[in-house]
């Protein structure tokens, strides 16, 4: 039985192992043990705190195998992206260029550096063990990724009403980003990794400040750069699809460095908010039914699992002893249930 819970300082060894395995490096999961410890402590404080509006909080979740106690993944939420410095993204604007006389009417896209996402809550730090990166274990990836939106939907005050998530953009066989080559490189004259390394742990904001301040007309960019605009890296396709299933929209923003998609969602319109229902736990054998993410606990102690649930809300949630243990619930407790997949037709 796999379940998601908040990370604890006692997880530090396991977290360090995962931080070192994660490629590319996750900014929210530093490899340095001391930095990592600070992050985990911040997360513990954040879950514990009474929060009236989003601030510096950081929430780190882990995926645990209940049988072995081994951790198999992480995901996290930054309550307010760019809390201390602006968060940059390219906003993808459509400009209409029309001439009645010439009967020309054309939509031209331009990328404009924007701070609009500053202060919004951001999903980040998704890492899942390689053993779970296959179709048979897809539900585990859904659970780990979507646990965050379920937590957000159940604790609205702690987060902004709009949430975003950045995906890695497309790179070629040599690891080079065609978008960086067409745009960022012209400003920096070197590889992105090199710039990032040379910025010596400074934030990406620092780099952003050297980037173009005027809008970039998309049709004027090289074809190679246009093709990767808003396209997720192959390695993040599953994560991308999971976001779409949650209801995230892909087209409004792209990353300023590699043009990877920046997905956005209004929390109220997310599947976790709009398709969730409260059911009463009852003891039961493992029934076959539609897969649900079942969550328990409040703001301070959150758990979730994947379980098959039959019937409707009135039928309650029949959960096995293992599931009840993983969630820390007993008979007659209330759990929040969100279908793992949206009914077809509701998908974009």
């Amino acid at each position, binding site marked *: 039985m796999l379940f998601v819970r908040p990370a604890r300082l006692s997880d530090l060894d396991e977290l360090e192992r995962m931080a070192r395995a994660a490629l590319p490096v996750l900014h929210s999961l530093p490899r340095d043990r001391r930095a990592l410890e600070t992050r985990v402590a911040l997360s513990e404080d954040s879950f514990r705190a009474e929060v009236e509006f989003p601030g510096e909080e950081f929430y780190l979740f882990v995926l645990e195998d209940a049988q072995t106690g081994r951790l198999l993944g992480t995901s996290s939420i930054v309550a307010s992206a760019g809390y201390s410095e602006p968060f940059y993204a390219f906003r993808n604007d459509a*400009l209409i*260029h*029309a*001439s009645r*006389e*010439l009967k*020309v009417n*054309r939509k*031209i896209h*331009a990328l404009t550096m924007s701070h609009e996402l500053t202060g919004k809550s951001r999903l980040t730090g998704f890492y899942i063990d390689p053993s779970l990166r296959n179709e048979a274990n897809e539900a585990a990836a859904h659970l780990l990724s979507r646990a965050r939106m379920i937590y957000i939907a159940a604790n609205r005050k702690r987060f902004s009403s709009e949430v975003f998530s950045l995906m890695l953009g497309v790179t070629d066989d040599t690891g080079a980003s065609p978008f960086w080559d*067409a*745009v960022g490189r*012209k*400003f*920096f*004259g070197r590889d992105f990794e090199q*710039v990032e390394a*040379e*910025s010596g742990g*400074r934030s990406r904001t*620092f*780099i952003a*400040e*050297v*980037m*173009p301040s*005027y*809008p*970039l*007309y998309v*049709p*004027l*960019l*090289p074809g190679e750069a246009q093709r990767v605009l808003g396209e997720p890296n192959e390695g993040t396709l599953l994560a991308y699809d999971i976001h779409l299933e949650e209801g995230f929209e892909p087209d409004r923003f792209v990353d300023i460095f590699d043009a990877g998609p920046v997905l956005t969602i209004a929390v109220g319109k997310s599947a976790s908010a709009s398709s969730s229902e409260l059911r009463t736990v009852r003891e039961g054998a493992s029934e076959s039914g539609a897969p649900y993410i079942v969550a328990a606990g409040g703001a301070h102690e959150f758990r979730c699992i994947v379980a098959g649930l039959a019937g409707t809300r009135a039928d309650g949630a029949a959960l096995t002893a293992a599931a009840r243990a993983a969630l820390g619930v007993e008979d007659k407790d209330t759990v929040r249930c969100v279908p793992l997949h949206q009914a077809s037709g509701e998908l974009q």
Partner: protein
Amino acid sequence: MIVVRCTQPGDVDALVALAQETGPGLTTFKPDRGALAARVERARRTLAGEAQAFEAGYFFVMEDTATGDVAGVCGIETEVGLEQPFYNYRVSTVVHASKDMGVWTRMSLLNISHDLTGYAEVCSLFLSPRYRTAGVGGLLSRSRFMFIAQFTDRFPQRLCAELRGHFDENGESPFWDAVGSHFYQIDFNEADYLSSHGKKSFVAELMPRYPVYLDLLPDAAQRAVGVTHKDTAPARKMLEAEGLRYENHVDIFDAGPVLECHTTDLRTVRESVVARVRIGDRTQTDSDAKSLVSNTLLEDFRCGATTGAVENGAFVLTAEEAAALRVKEGDNVRVLTSYPRAK
């Protein structure tokens, strides 16, 4: 004698015939009788002081007085952009730098500009291929500066000339392909034709509203900025000798350079002098000086090229030359003398 003179209403037939000789590409001089008649009339009203500032413009023809053959045209617009806006890109510099990161990058931006509004513009030059021999093209082009030198107070402080941009061996403009084609969705020639015929509203409606980073464009487009069409290179050289310079303004369609100058800095304005006419046979002096000579009349302005230089405040014209230039003994003429470089 070959002279350049102001157009007359009677020139319209000859202008239509001359315009038949233009190939594709010259968009300002087409065999369109109505348009040409209007242009001649506009020039007449300008000379007569009846034209308003936004429409004032001069129009000249080159005529062989021996045969009456009209073989070239050129013009001056007095103040561009006062009616339809006059658009260019200004190529400006931005520096993106971060000392901490060791980054210092100079970038060029193309900004839509109306900087040249109110400038005079020398334009519409066409010379029949039949007359493309040494000196004739120079006379046609530079006669305009003789006119400006004679009537400086009819012109604003600054002057410009737009030159055709670079086209590759297939006749394609790399700059148009990289920029304009995405916004205008019509063919270069159509865009050029419409804009030079006063239908400029589409330019404003369709052009990029934000500055364009030149460094992000394909290399071929970057290299074309401010570069002159190979056929226009001699014209550029002549204008530069006159004192005009590329000052980072380019055409919005083909990125051809705009050359600019203060009118008082024009070589012809600075160096031409007024002299008295002496009719006579050209004395066989050892001087091989060549001179542009014009009369000082407005409506009947005439300018030609001959040999000789001003001596003791006088310039010698043959009787035939004096007749062609409509001057007589003792009249004033304006003279610009140049000396061949090699002795």
